[in-house]
């Protein structure tokens, strides 16, 4: 049970919620959130958008009943959070190229922040694609070396990956598949997968993702996978 510090609407349907929390949290990990009894039945996986001691932040889009209920919570209300779960993005020391699409930008903020903390010398370039309106872009501008923003277009049309860069991407599966496809094989690419989840901890096998090395659990073995593991055909 965590207490909500703030829960603000950034643009219609996009909310940013901060809650009391202290613990070890990696970029790309997620929490299972619930602020209801049995309707809906399950908790909802939401990535870590930002974290500092005492404050955990989520960025989420209202798409259905669960996120709708979350959006109505007010500071001081309780929300059940379980986590952090999942492997998260690996720590790298190479230059970083981050590609986010839509609400897929949610985990990338904490990723870039941590990267820059660990690699003050490293270069971090960020591609962000939105369908209509952008959000959370300024935060990237203050952290990253370059931010390429695209609204209404196809962000991968602009994507140019530099030799030696590691690529990390989160967004619609189509976007990630496109990134996986176009980035030269010499660059490492990490993708953050989505799946419907029930338990979030590896017990139900509901979130299975086929990989080159057999079924993997998105919640436990993922959500972050190497490109060649999941887009291997």
């Amino acid at each position, binding site marked *: 049970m965590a207490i909500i510090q703030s829960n603000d609407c950034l643009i219609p349907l996009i909310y940013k919620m901060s809650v009391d929390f202290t613990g070890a949290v990696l970029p790309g990990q997620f929490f299972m959130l*619930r602020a209801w009894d*049995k*309707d*809906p*039945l*399950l*908790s909802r996986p939401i990535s870590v958008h930002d974290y500092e001691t005492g404050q955990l932040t989520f960025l989420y889009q209202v798409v259905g009943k669960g996120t709708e209920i979350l959006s109505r919570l007010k500071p001081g209300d309780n929300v059940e959070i*379980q986590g952090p779960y999942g492997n998260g993005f690996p720590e790298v020391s190479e230059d970083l190229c981050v590609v986010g699409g839509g609400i897929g930008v949610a985990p990338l903020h904490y990723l870039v922040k941590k990267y820059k903390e660990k690699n003050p010398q490293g270069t971090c370039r960020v591609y962000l694609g939105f369908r209509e309106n952008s959000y959370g872009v300024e935060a990237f501008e203050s952290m990253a070396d370059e931010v390429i923003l695209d609204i209404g277009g196809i962000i991968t049309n602009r994507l140019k990956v530099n030799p030696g860069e590691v690529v990390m991407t989160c967004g619609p599966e189509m976007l990630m598949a496109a990134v996986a496809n176009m980035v030269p094989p010499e660059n490492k690419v990490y993708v953050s997968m989505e799946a*419907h*989840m*029930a*338990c979030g*901890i*590896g*017990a*139900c*096998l*509901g*979130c*299975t993702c*086929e990989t080159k090395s*057999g*079924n993997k659990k998105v919640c*436990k073995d993922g959500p972050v996978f190497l490109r060649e593991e999941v887009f291997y055909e």
Partner: protein
Amino acid sequence: MSKCLETMFNEILFKNPVISASGTFGFGREYEAFYDLEKLGGLCTKGLTLEPKAGNKGIRLWETPAGLMNSIGLENPGIDAFIKNEWPHLKDVNTVTIINVGGKDEESYLKAIEKLNAVDAQLIELNISCPNVKAGGMAYGIKATTAGDITKKVVELSKHPVMVKLSPNGDAISEIALACEIAGAKGISLINTLQGMAIDYKKKSAVFNNLYAGLSGPAVKPIALRMTHQVCQAVTIPVMAMGGISTWEDALEFIMAGATCIQMGTMNFNNPMAPVEMIEGLEIYCQKEGLSNISEIRGII
């Protein structure tokens, strides 16, 4: 700890009647982060098959009002890998481990059972009721004759007591239960998931690749309770009931309907601590009601 929840199921002593259901509890390890598994009356493994199984493709989970549909399709590492990787850990947990066994035909059931004779398990749950696999599975469980046949063969071969897990999707469930009892089953568990369907109207297609999938969770509780009552009236062997049980009050209702133990499935996802809270709730109930053992209210309806 008081003994008011101690329960004999056939000849097996459970420290309490609360067991985690197959397929919702992995092989137990994941829940060790939440509580000590020894608190449970028992736990039931994910359904195991002779060979490893990759399970179904496509979407595997879908929420419905107060329910969950799943189409996992018995993904599991196979009996050998289970014996090698999971059993050494599980066998040392101080609780009853029930091994859930599925199959695609008679031969695969029997070979799996034979292999399990090598381990020192306490109870086999024979799953003839999975609606998510094409061959075998539910096909055996929807008719009294086939259910009795396979049970008989498995019972003869197994060195462990066998509890048969029934499907709510077939013929009158009390008749199937009776056929299993006659065939030598030492217990009945029910219900497996109800066959349902989901459609994604936006995509204009069925949600699940298999078209139909299995429904569980609180939505099905009234049906599970009715079937439990029917089966308890029909057989003399003990019954392990499940289907939407989420609180100690629910558990109590199933016990009043005649169940010896209960299993909790889907609600593990809603609240990982649910089984432990249920055990505590039942204990307090016994104290308040002055029951020296929970069995005193069993089958009173």
